[in-house]
């Protein structure tokens, strides 16, 4: 069966598809989140050096990884929207930004709560922490730049430029622990393997998968409202059953 993927590049068809997809991402996200936290708190053993404080890892690492991935996906959508002039791609970029900003905030927040008992400081001007803070400012800058421009297509283009230029910060965050001598520890899980306890890995990857699905679900929810707002003058919006009533 041939699927016409371009059909769903039109906001009018994607709106309905997104609505149908949301529960398929939201419910598995909730289940995986509970499973991950259960393993993280009741199965994974106490850490030899960090005692129970290490359990922050199960939320800190997933939100941090996703704060970077969401930025790259956002910049990718923004770039596609800029180059091919596809409206839906730009709307997806706009829809991803607030969730990315929240994940970045949570990365900094959980990091501070981990840093205090382990390093003795909530915050240090270390390469990893500083570049993650810059990521938060990039998200906020993208959102406020778009909000300040009234014409949506001009806002898309201006935001896309900022998002693309800012993407250089993501590899800086990722490699910061190797490039500079930092307080932040390096990666425990590498391509070559890991010394991490199996239950700790299971908890971390379950929460990571849960948050990944969560990000997709909330982005689809947000993009549906954005589509309605931007397409409000078109006939298909007027004919929607949820608008007609």
């Amino acid at each position, binding site marked *: 069966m041939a699927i016409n993927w371009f059909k769903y590049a039109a906001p009018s068809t994607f709106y309905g598809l997104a609505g149908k997809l949301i529960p398929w991402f939201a419910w598995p996200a909730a289940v995986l989140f509970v499973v991950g*936290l259960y393993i993280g*708190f009741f199965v994974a053993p*106490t850490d030899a050096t960090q*005692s*129970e*404080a290490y*359990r*922050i890892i199960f*939320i*800190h690492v997933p*939100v941090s990884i996703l704060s970077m991935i969401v930025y790259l996906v956002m910049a990718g959508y923004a770039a596609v929207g800029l180059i091919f002039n596809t409206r839906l791609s730009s709307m997806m970029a706009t829809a991803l930004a*607030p*969730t990315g900003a*929240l994940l970045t*905030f*949570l990365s900094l*927040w*959980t990091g501070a*709560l*981990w840093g*205090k*008992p382990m390093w003795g400081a909530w915050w240090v001007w270390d390469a990893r922490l500083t570049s993650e803070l810059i990521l938060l400012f990039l998200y906020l800058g993208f959102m406020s730049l778009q909000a300040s421009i009234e014409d949506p297509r001009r806002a898309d283009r201006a935001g896309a430029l900022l998002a693309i230029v800012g993407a250089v910060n993501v590899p800086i965050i990722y490699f910061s622990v190797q490039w500079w001598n930092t307080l932040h520890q390096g990666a425990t899980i590498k391509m070559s393997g890991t010394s991490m306890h199996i239950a700790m890995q299971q908890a971390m990857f379950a929460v990571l998968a849960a948050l990944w699905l*969560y990000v997709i679900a*909330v982005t689809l*929810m*947000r993009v*549906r*409202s954005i589509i*309605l*707002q931007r397409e*409000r003058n078109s006939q298909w*919006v*007027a004919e929607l059953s*949820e*608008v007609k*009533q």
Partner: protein
Amino acid sequence: MNWLEFFAMKGYALYVWGSYGIALLVFAVEIILLRHKRKTTLQQLRLVRDAENLE
């Protein structure tokens, strides 16, 4: 292991529960705000349509 001991997190309760508490709060608030946004967007569309029908 009893529950009091569990919640005490060997003295790290503030840091551990402070992390998970705020994370869950952020996710809950985001979902509530998105549902609210959908509701107000749909209301706005109907209001504009009704206003145009009156003209």
